[in-house]
C-alpha cells in the first residue's frame, strides 16, 4: 500500500486547524513534485503541541516528512518561530529550518510560503492551493509546495508504522486518530494531552488537574477559536460537532482557562487588540476592520451601551471572509463568541463595578 492509500484509509486530517484530508494533500504533493514545509510554529495563542512533537518525537517527525516527499530530504523545510526552543532543537538536529518571525499571521501557511520564496512572512491570496504552484498577488512565482502541521507529519509516520487500523482505534469514525491538545491557563497542571475525538472536555480539564476556582470562561482554539462558559465546557465533547455547536472547531488543539483574577472583558480586550496588531496590513477589511473591532470592544468594556454594541455587531458582520487569509475571520469569530459568553458579565458592568475585576484598573 502506498502512503497515500494508507492515509486515506486512516482518515488522517490536518492537525493545524483546517482539518483537511492529509491523503489529498500528499497525493497532490506527489503529483506536482511539491516541496514540503513542516509547520512547527505553534502560531495559535496557547498552542504548544508542535514544540512537544519536535521535543519528543523528532525522529518520527523526520520519518513522516521523508514519506511525504518520497524520501527526498532536500525537499523538506521546517518552519519555526525565530528564537524559539523548537527552532533551536531542529537546527541542532541538522535540519533545514526556516526562521519565521514570531508573530501570529506569519505562522499561517501562505505566509510561510511567501517567506520561503524570499518574500515577507505575510499571507498570500490563495487563488488555487500552492501545492500546484502559483504566484503571489504581485506576480512572484511560488513553486509547488505543501505545508503540513508538525503533528500531522508525525501522524503520517505513525500511520505507516502502526497501520491505518491502529490509527482508527482512536477517536470517532468521522474524526479518527489520536490528537494532541494543549491545556493551559488557569488549570492546576497545564500540559499536552493525547486524546481521541469525542472525549468530554471535562476529562481533558481533569487531566490538567482541574480548573482553578471562579474561572470566568474557557478559550478554545485561541484567537481563531471561541469562548465557552465553564458549564458549556463541562457538557461538551472535544470533537468537531461538539465544538461546531458553539461556532468553533478543534482547531490547532488549544484550551486555555481564563485568569479568574482579571475581568474577562479586559482579557478579551487584550486578545483582540493583539489580534488587530497582528494584521499583516495587506487587506483593507483586516487592517482597518480589526482595529475598529478592538476599539468597539474596549469601548463596550469601559462603558457598555446599546449603540456601541450595535456598532460592534455591525463590524463583526461585515469583516469575515474578506481577507487573503482567515485571520479576520478568526478574530471576528472569537469576539462574536466573547460577546455571547460574556453578555451576562457585560450586564453586570452596566449595573455597577466589575465583580471580578480586582485588577480591572491595573496597568498591564
Amino acid at each position, binding site marked *: 500500500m502506498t502512503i497515500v492509500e494508507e492515509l486515506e484509509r486512516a482518515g488522517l486530517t490536518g492537525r493545524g486547524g483546517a482539518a483537511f484530508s492529509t491523503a489529498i494533500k500528499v497525493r497532490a504533493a506527489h503529483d506536482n513534485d511539491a516541496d514540503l514545509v513542516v509547520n512547527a510554529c505553534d502560531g495559535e495563542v496557547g498552542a504548544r503541541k508542535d514544540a512537544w512533537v519536535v521535543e519528543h518525537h523528532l525522529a518520527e517527525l523526520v520519518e513522516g516528512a521523508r514519506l511525504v516527499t518520497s524520501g527526498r530530504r532536500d525537499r523538506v523545510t521546517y518552519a519555526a518561530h525565530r528564537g524559539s526552543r523548537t527552532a533551536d532543537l531542529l537546527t541542532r538536529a541538522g535540519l533545514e529550518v526556516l526562521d519565521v518571525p514570531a*508573530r501570529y499571521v506569519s505562522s499561517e501557511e501562505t505566509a510561510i510560503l511567501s517567506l520561503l520564496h524570499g*518574500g515577507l512572512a505575510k499571507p498570500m491570496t490563495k487563488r488555487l492551493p500552492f501545492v500546484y504552484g502559483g504566484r503571489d498577488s504581485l506576480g*512572484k512565482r511560488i513553486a509547488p509546495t505543501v505545508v503540513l502541521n508538525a503533528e500531522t507529519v508525525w501522524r503520517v509516520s505513525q500511520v505507516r508504522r502502526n497501520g491505518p487500523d491502529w490509527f482508527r482505534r482512536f477517536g470517532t469514525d468521522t474524526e479518527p486518530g489520536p490528537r494532541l491538545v494543549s491545556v493551559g491557563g488557569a488549570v492546576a497542571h497545564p500540559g499536552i494531552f493525547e486524546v481521541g475525538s469525542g472525549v468530554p472536555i471535562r476529562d481533558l480539564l481533569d487531566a490538567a488537574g482541574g480548573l482553578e476556582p471562579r474561572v470566568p470562561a474557557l478559550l478554545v482554539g485561541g484567537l481563531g477559536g471561541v469562548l465557552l462558559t465553564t458549564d458549556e465546557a463541562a457538557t461538551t465533547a472535544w470533537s468537531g460537532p461538539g465544538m461546531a455547536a458553539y461556532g468553533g472547531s478543534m482547531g490547532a488543539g488549544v484550551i486555555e482557562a481564563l485568569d479568574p483574577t482579571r475581568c474577562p472583558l479586559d482579557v478579551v480586550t487584550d486578545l483582540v487588540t493583539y489580534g488587530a496588531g497582528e494584521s*499583516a*496590513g495587506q487587506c483593507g477589511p483586516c487592517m482597518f476592520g480589526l482595529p475598529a473591532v478592538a476599539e468597539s470592544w474596549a469601548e463596550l468594556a469601559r462603558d457598555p451601551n446599546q449603540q456601541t454594541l450595535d456598532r460592534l455587531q455591525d463590524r463583526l458582520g461585515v469583516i469575515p471572509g474578506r481577507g487573503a487569509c482567515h485571520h479576520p475571520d478568526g478574530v471576528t469569530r472569537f469576539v462574536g463568541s466573547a460577546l455571547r459568553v460574556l453578555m451576562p458579565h457585560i450586564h453586570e458592568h452596566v449595573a455597577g463595578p466589575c465583580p471580578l475585576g480586582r485588577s480591572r484598573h491595573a496597568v498591564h
Partner: protein
Amino acid sequence: MTGQTLWFISRATGTVSLILFTTIVVLGMVIAGRRAPHGDSATIVMGLHRWLSLGSLAFLALHIVTAIADGYVSVGWLSTILPFTSVYRTFWVGLGTLAVDILLAVVVTSYLRHRMPERSWKAIHWLSYAMWPFALIHGFAMGTASEPLLRWLTVLCGAAGAAAVAWRLRTTHADRERRALVNFQEWS
C-alpha cells in the same frame, strides 16, 4: 492634399495628442493618489483615463502619418518606431519617437494586465512619467515656434502636469499609510 495642409493637420493632431496625454497622466495620478469614501468620482476618473488613452491613439496615429506623408521634411517611416533615426531634427523627433514607444508599451501592457505579473505592469506603467515630458518637449521644440497660442498651450500642459506631480508626491491616503506603517514591523 498639399504639404501645407498635411503640416497643419500634423501640428493640430500633435497638439491635441499632447493635451490628451497631459489629461490622461493627470487622471492617472489622481487615481493613484486619492481615495474618496464612495467610488463615484473614481469610476469617472478611471473610465476617462482608460478611454482617453485609447482615443488619443487615433490623434497620435494621424499626427505621425501626416508628419511623414508631408514630405517637406525628411522624417522617414523607420523613425516612427526607432528613436533618433530621423534626418530632420534628429533629437527632437527622436524624443517624440521615444514617447510613442513608451505609450505603445503602456497601452499594450494595460490591455494584457490580467495576463501578466502585476509588478511588471506597474514598472512599465511608471514609464508614463518619462513619456509625458518627452512628448511635451518634442511638441514644444518642434511645433510652437511661430505660434504663440500653441506655445502657451504647451506651457499650460507642462504647468498642469507639474502641479499634478507635486500634488502626487505630497498626497497620501489611509490605505497607503496603514500599509506603510505595518510594513515597518518585523516581517522577515
